[in-house]
C-alpha cells in the first residue's frame, strides 16, 4: 500500500539531488513544509487527484527544492467532506506543523476550515472559488491563484453577448453556492452587455438524469451551464442526445481541460472561460503539460494548473523571504506580492485580497488531430475578480445568490 | 355477574368470516373448556377477547366492564391474562426475568428509567414466588433458551398467574407436551385458586375434560353446543362435528 503521508518527502533522493547541485548552505536546514488538502476520495476525487498531481509534478521537477529550500509535502485527504477537511487541516497544522496549506478544492470545504485558517494564521493557497473569501468577508491568510467562482463567468457573459451575439440565454447549474455564483456572474455581465437571462434552472447535487431540465430549454438562443466534477460530461452528452443544438457556454469547471479525454464528440463547440487553458502557448505551460504526461500520464486541467502554480508562488515567496516562514503575516504579504510572468496560465499577480489578476481565456472545444482540445478564441487580459466594474462599485452590490441577480422580463 | 360475557362477536378477514356471532358467558371461578375442529375459530376468539385482534362488531365484557374497544394492554390491566398456543417468551432472558417482565407489565414501575431493575427486590421476590408456584424456583436464573419445552410451558403459566388475573385464557396449554409433563401442568392448573376464572382451548380431551366445569363446542366461527361435560358429550351435534371431520 502506498504511504500517503511521507510519500513525497524530501527524503534520501531529494537530499542527494540537492547535494549534487550548487545550493546555498541553507538548504541543509529545516525543510519548509507544505500541506496539501485535496479530495482524494469521494465524489470530487477527479479534481482532488489533479491537485495532487499538479503540485507533485512541480515539486518533483524541482527535486523538492524551491529557491534552494528543501520542501516536505504532506497530504491530507478531505474525502470530499467538510468535517474531514477540518480534521485534516488540524492534523496538517498541529501535528505536521506545515508552513503552507495548498487547497482545498471546494468552497464548502474551504468554509469549513476558514475560521481555523484565520485563527491559526496559516498561509493558505486555496482553489475554492467562493467569491466572498476575497471580497466581502476576506480571509487575510488566503491566496488564490485561480479565480473566484464568478471571475471567469464575468468574461463569459461579456463574450456571449458581444462576440457570440446571444440575446436570450437559459442558465442551468447545480443547486448550490458555486452554481449561484457562477450563474450570477454570468448574468450580471451578460445583461450589462445587453443580453437577457430568461430562465435559471437549478438541478440538485447528484442529479443523474438531466432530462427534466433539458426538456425546459426552449425559447432561447443559448445555454450557460456551470457544472463541475463529472457532471459536465453527463450534461453535455444528454444535451446532445436530445438533439439540442443551441450554443453552450460555461465556466472553468464546465470546460475543464482535464475532462477533454472523457468528453465525446458531442462536446465539440462548447465554449468556456477559464483562467487556465491547455492551449496557452507559453513555454511554462508546455513544460507543465509535459511533466503531467511524464509523471502521471495525465492531461492537466484547471485544478492541476492551480496547485502547480501554487508551487511557483511559494517558490517566489520563499525567495523574497529568504526562507524565513516563521511569521505568517509576513509570509502572506510575500505571497501576495508575488508577480509571475512565465506560468502555465501566463502572467498574473494578486490583488490586495490575495485573489489572482490575470488572463481569462475563452476557448472552444474542437477536434484537432483526432483529439478533442480547447482552442483559444480570445484572451481577456489582466482580469480581476471585479472586472468589469471598479472594486468599490462591485462590492456595493449584493453577493450572488439563487435569487440575485433576479430574472427580469426581457426587453423585446 | 358473569366473569366474561361475550355477545354477537364477529370478525372477518377479507371476505372470510372467521368469527360469526359468538355468544359466551363464563361465570366467576368457572373452568371453561372450548373445543372444536381445526379452523373453528377458537384462537381467533381468544385474540378477540384479549385484544390482539379488534372485533368487527359485538361486545366483550369483563366482570361487567365493556372491553371490546380497548387495546390489549388495557385489558391486561383490567385483569385479563393469556398464554399462547405457540410459546412466545423471551429466550435470551432468564426465567426470573421473564416472570419479572410479566409482573412489571402491571406495575407503575415499568416507566421508571432511573432505578436498577435488579434492585427491585420486592418485585423479584414476587417473581420467584410465582416460579415457585409452578415448581421452577430452582431454575429461576437459567436462561430460558436452556430449558425444555414443558418447562417453558410452565413459565408461560407462571407469567400469566403472576399477574393475578381475574380471567385467564389458556390456549392449548398441553400441546406438544409429554405425558409426564401434561400431568404436571394439569396438577398445576388444578391448584389455581377459584378467584381466577379460566377459559381453555384444548384438543387433549383426556386431561381437559376432567378439568372443565362446562364445555363450549365451536364450529365455523360460532359456539354450537354449550353445556356441562355430560350434556356436550350427549349432544348429537358434537358427534356430528367430530365425526364429520
Amino acid at each position, binding site marked *: 500500500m502506498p504511504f500517503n503521508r511521507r510519500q513525497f518527502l524530501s527524503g534520501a533522493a531529494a537530499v542527494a539531488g540537492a547535494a549534487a547541485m550548487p545550493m546555498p548552505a541553507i538548504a541543509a536546514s529545516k525543510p519548509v513544509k507544505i500541506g496539501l488538502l485535496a479530495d482524494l476520495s469521494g465524489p470530487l476525487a477527479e479534481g482532488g*487527484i489533479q491537485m495532487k498531481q499538479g503540485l507533485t509534478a512541480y515539486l518533483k521537477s524541482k527535486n523538492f527544492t524551491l529557491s534552494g529550500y528543501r520542501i516536505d509535502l504532506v497530504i491530507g485527504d478531505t474525502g470530499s467532506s467538510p468535517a474531514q477537511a477540518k480534521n485534516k487541516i488540524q492534523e496538517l497544522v498541529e501535528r505536521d506543523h506545515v508552513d503552507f496549506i495548498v487547497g482545498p478544492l471546494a468552497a464548502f470545504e474551504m468554509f469549513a476550515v476558514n475560521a481555523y485558517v484565520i485563527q491559526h494564521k496559516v498561509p493558505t493557497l486555496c482553489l475554492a472559488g467562493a467569491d466572498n473569501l476575497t471580497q466581502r468577508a476576506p480571509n487575510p491568510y488566503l491566496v488564490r491563484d485561480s479565480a473566484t467562482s464568478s471571475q471567469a463567468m464575468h468574461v463569459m457573459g461579456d463574450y456571449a453577448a458581444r462576440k457570440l451575439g446571444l440575446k436570450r440565454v437559459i442558465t442551468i447549474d447545480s443547486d448550490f453556492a458555486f452554481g449561484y455564483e457562477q450563474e450570477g456572474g454570468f448574468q450580471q455581465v451578460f445583461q450589462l452587455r445587453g443580453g437577457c437571462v430568461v430562465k435559471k434552472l437549478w438541478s440538485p447535487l447528484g442529479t443523474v438524469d438531466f*432530462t427534466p431540465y433539458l426538456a425546459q430549454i*426552449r425559447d432561447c438562443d443559448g445555454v450557460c451551464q456551470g457544472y463541475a466534477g*463529472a457532471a459536465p460530461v*453527463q450534461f453535455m452528452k444528454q444535451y446532445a*442526445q436530445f*438533439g439540442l443544438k443551441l450554443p453552450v457556454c460555461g465556466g472553468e469547471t464546465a470546460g475543464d481541460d482535464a475532462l477533454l479525454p472523457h468528453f465525446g464528440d458531442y462536446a465539440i463547440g462548447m465554449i468556456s472561460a477559464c483562467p487556465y487553458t491547455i492551449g496557452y502557448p507559453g513555454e511554462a505551460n508546455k513544460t507543465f503539460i509535459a511533466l503531467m504526461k511524464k509523471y502521471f500520464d495525465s492531461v492537466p486541467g484547471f485544478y492541476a494548473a492551480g496547485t502547480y502554480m501554487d508551487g511557483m508562488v511559494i517558490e517566489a515567496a520563499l525567495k523574497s523571504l529568504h526562507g524565513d516562514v516563521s511569521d505568517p503575516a509576513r509570509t502572506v504579504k510575500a505571497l501576495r506580492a508575488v508577480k509571475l510572468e512565465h506560468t502555465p496560465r501566463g502572467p498574473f499577480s494578486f490583488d490586495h485580497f490575495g485573489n489572482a489578476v490575470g488572463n481569462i481565456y475563452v476557448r472552444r472545444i474542437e477536434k484537432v488531430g483526432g483529439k478533442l482540445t480547447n482552442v483559444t478564441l480570445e484572451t481577456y487580459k489582466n482580469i480581476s475578480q471585479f472586472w468589469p466594474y471598479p472594486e468599490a462599485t462591485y462590492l456595493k452590490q449584493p453577493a450572488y445568490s439563487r435569487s440575485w441577480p433576479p430574472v427580469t422580463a426581457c426587453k423585446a | 355477574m358473569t366473569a366474561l360475557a361475550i355477545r354477537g362477536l364477529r370478525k372477518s378477514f377479507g371476505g372470510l368470516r372467521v368469527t360469526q356471532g359468538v355468544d359466551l358467558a363464563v361465570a366467576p371461578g368457572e373452568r371453561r373448556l372450548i373445543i372444536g375442529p381445526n379452523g373453528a375459530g377458537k384462537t381467533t376468539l381468544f385474540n378477540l377477547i384479549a385484544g390482539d385482534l379488534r372485533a368487527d362488531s359485538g361486545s366483550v365484557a369483563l366482570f361487567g366492564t365493556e372491553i371490546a374497544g380497548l387495546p390489549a394492554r388495557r385489558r391486561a390491566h383490567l385483569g385479563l391474562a393469556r398464554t399462547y398456543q405457540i410459546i412466545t417468551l423471551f429466550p435470551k432472558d432468564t426465567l426470573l426475568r421473564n416472570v419479572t417482565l410479566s409482573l412489571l407489565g402491571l406495575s407503575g414501575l415499568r416507566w421508571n428509567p432511573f432505578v436498577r431493575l435488579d434492585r427491585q427486590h420486592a418485585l423479584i421476590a414476587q417473581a420467584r414466588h410465582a416460579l415457585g408456584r409452578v415448581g421452577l424456583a430452582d431454575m429461576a436464573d437459567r436462561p430460558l433458551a436452556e430449558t425444555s419445552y414443558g418447562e417453558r410451558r410452565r413459565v408461560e403459566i407462571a407469567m400469566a398467574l403472576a399477574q393475578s388475573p381475574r380471567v385467564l385464557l389458556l390456549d392449548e396449554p398441553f400441546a406438544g407436551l409429554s405425558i409426564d409433563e401434561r400431568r404436571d401442568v394439569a396438577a398445576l392448573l388444578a391448584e389455581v385458586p377459584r378467584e381466577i376464572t379460566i377459559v381453555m382451548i384444548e384438543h387433549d380431551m383426556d386431561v381437559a375434560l376432567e378439568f372443565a366445569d362446562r364445555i363450549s363446542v365451536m364450529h365455523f366461527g360460532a359456539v354450537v353446543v354449550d353445556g356441562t361435560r355430560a350434556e356436550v358429550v350427549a349432544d348429537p351435534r358434537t358427534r356430528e362435528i367430530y365425526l364429520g371431520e
Partner: protein
Amino acid sequence: MWTILAINSVTFGGLLFLLSAGFSLIFGLMRVPNLTHGSMFMLGGYIGGSLIASWHLPFWLAALVAAAAVAAFGGVMERFLLRRLAGSVLAQVLVTLGVAFMVSDFSLMVWGGDPLSVDAPRALAGGTRALGVFFPTYRIAVILIAVAVAAILWAMLDRTRLGAMIRAGVDDPEMARVVGIRVSRLFTIVFCLGAGLAGFGGVMGAPILSVYPGLDFAMLPLALVVVILGGAGSLPGSLVGSIVIGFIYNFGLVMVPQLAYFILFLPMVLVLVLRPQGLFGRAAP
C-alpha cells in the same frame, strides 16, 4: 415538453427497474438488504465501459460480460460472506456496506476519479421523432430492454421450476425448506441473478448517465425507494414502482423545482406513513 417528460419517465423507470428488480428479489427471498447494490450497478458500468473503450468489444457483448462478472462477484459475496450471516440483519448491513466501501475505493484505484463516458451502440445513436418530439433512440431502446428483461424474469418466475422455487421461497422460506428446496443453492442463484441484473443495468445506464465515482451511492437510495414503493419480492411491484418513481422524478423536478432535493423522499414518507408495507407489498414480516 410534457411528451418528452412522459417518455423519459418510462426510460428512467426502465433503468430503475433493471437496478431494483434484483434488489427486490434478493430482499424478498433472502431478507438481505443488499446495500452493495448501487456498487454493483457502478461496477457493471465501469467494467462494461472499459470493455467497450479499451477492448473494443461490441456493446451488447460487453454488457453481457459485465453482467456475468458482476454476477460472479455477487456469487462470491453470497458464498463467502452472506451465507454465514443468515437471519442476522445487522451483520448483513455491516458487511454489505463494508463491501460497498471497498468497491468504491477499488473503482477509484482502477478507474481513477475521471468519469467514464460510454457511447451507445452505433445503431442506436442519434434520435427518433416519436409522438411529435425528438427523443434519443437509445433511451427508447432502454425501455424495450427493460420490458424484455421484465418479460424474461416474469417467464422465469412463472414458468420454470427455478421460478416456482423462488416464489415459494419468497412466500414462505420455512415451508420452502421443508418441502426440500435446496435453499442454499437457490440463494446463491438469486444473489448472482440480482447482482448480474444490477451490473447489466449499469452498462445500460452508462451511455445515459456516464460512470463516475459516487454513482454507487447516488443509485442505492433510488433502489431503496423503488422497493419501498413497490414492496419487496414483487416483480410487478418493482416495475410499477420504478415507473412511478420515473414519473415523480421527471414531472416533480419541472413542476415543483423548489422541492428538488426532496422530490423522491416526500412521496416515500407519505407512502410509508399511510401504507407501511408499500403500495403493492404485503404486510412486512
